[in-house]
C-alpha cells in the first residue's frame, strides 16, 4: 500500500480502476485534476479503465469506433 495516498483516496482509485467509480465521482471526492488520478493509480500499480461496451451510449460509441477504424484505414494523401 502506498504511503503517499490516504486510504480513502486509494479505495476510490481502486474502484475507479475496476469500473465502479467514475471520474465525476472522483472529482466530487476532492480529486482536483486528472494528473492526481493518474498519479494515484501509478502509486497503486493500476491504470485507467477502458469502459466495456455497455451503458446508455453504446450505439453512439459503436459509431465512433467504426468511424475511427475507417479513418485509420484510409490512406494518406500523397
Amino acid at each position, binding site marked *: 500500500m502506498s504511503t503517499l495516498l490516504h486510504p480513502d483516496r486509494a479505495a476510490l482509485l481502486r474502484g475507479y480502476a475496476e469500473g465502479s467509480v*467514475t*471520474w465525476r465521482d472522483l472529482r466530487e471526492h476532492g480529486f482536483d485534476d486528472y*494528473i492526481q488520478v493518474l498519479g494515484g493509480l501509478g502509486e497503486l500499480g493500476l*491504470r*485507467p479503465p477502458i*469502459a466495456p461496451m455497455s451503458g446508455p451510449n453504446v450505439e*453512439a460509441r459503436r459509431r465512433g469506433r467504426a468511424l475511427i477504424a475507417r479513418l485509420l484505414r484510409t490512406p494518406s494523401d500523397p
Partner: protein
Amino acid sequence: MTAPFSLIVTDTSPLFTLVLADSLDVLLRPRLPVSIPDAVYFEVTRVRGAPGADGIVEWINAHLDTVRLVPTEIGIDQQRRLEEGRSIRGLGELAAIEALERFIRASPDANALLLFEDSDIERRRVVIDDRVALISTGDFLRELERAGLIQSADHILALASERGRNVERQRLTVSGEGARRGLREQLSGPGAMTRND
C-alpha cells in the same frame, strides 16, 4: 466537397493520459481537425507546475494547423466564476457541448466525434443527434491497436499512470518545499523569535 468534421475533446483526461504517455500525436492519426474548447484548455493550464500541462500547451502550439481552441460563452463564465472564487467543476464538458452545437449549426453537413473519458461515457447518457458519434480514450486506443498503429492500448494507459506517479511525487515535493520555505521565511522574518529569546 468533403463535409466538415471535427474531433471535439470534452475533458482534460484524454489529454493528460496521452501527454504523459508521449502519445498526444495519436489524436492526429485519423486526420480530423481537433477542437479543444477554451474551458477544457483552461482546466489543463491551471494545473501549475505539472509537466503534462506544459506538454499539452507545446503540442497545441506545434499543431495549430490541425488543433484549435474554441472560444465559448461557458469559457467566459468559467473566468468569471474563478474571479468570484466559485467552482468551475464540469464546465469543460459544458463548453464542449456548446462548441459542438456551434459546429453543427454552422453547416447542415457537419459531423462531429466527441472524445470522452471512459468511466463517464459508460455511465452517463449523452444526448446527441445522428451527426454526432462518441468515443472514449480507451475506445480510441483500442482502434489504434487494431489498426497496428500502437503496440497496445494497455501499455499506453500503464505508461500514463506510471509517469503520473512520478509527476505527482514531484508536485508533492515541490509543494512541501514551498511550505517549508514559507515557514523558514516566517521564522526568520521581522519579529521572529531567535534562539536567544
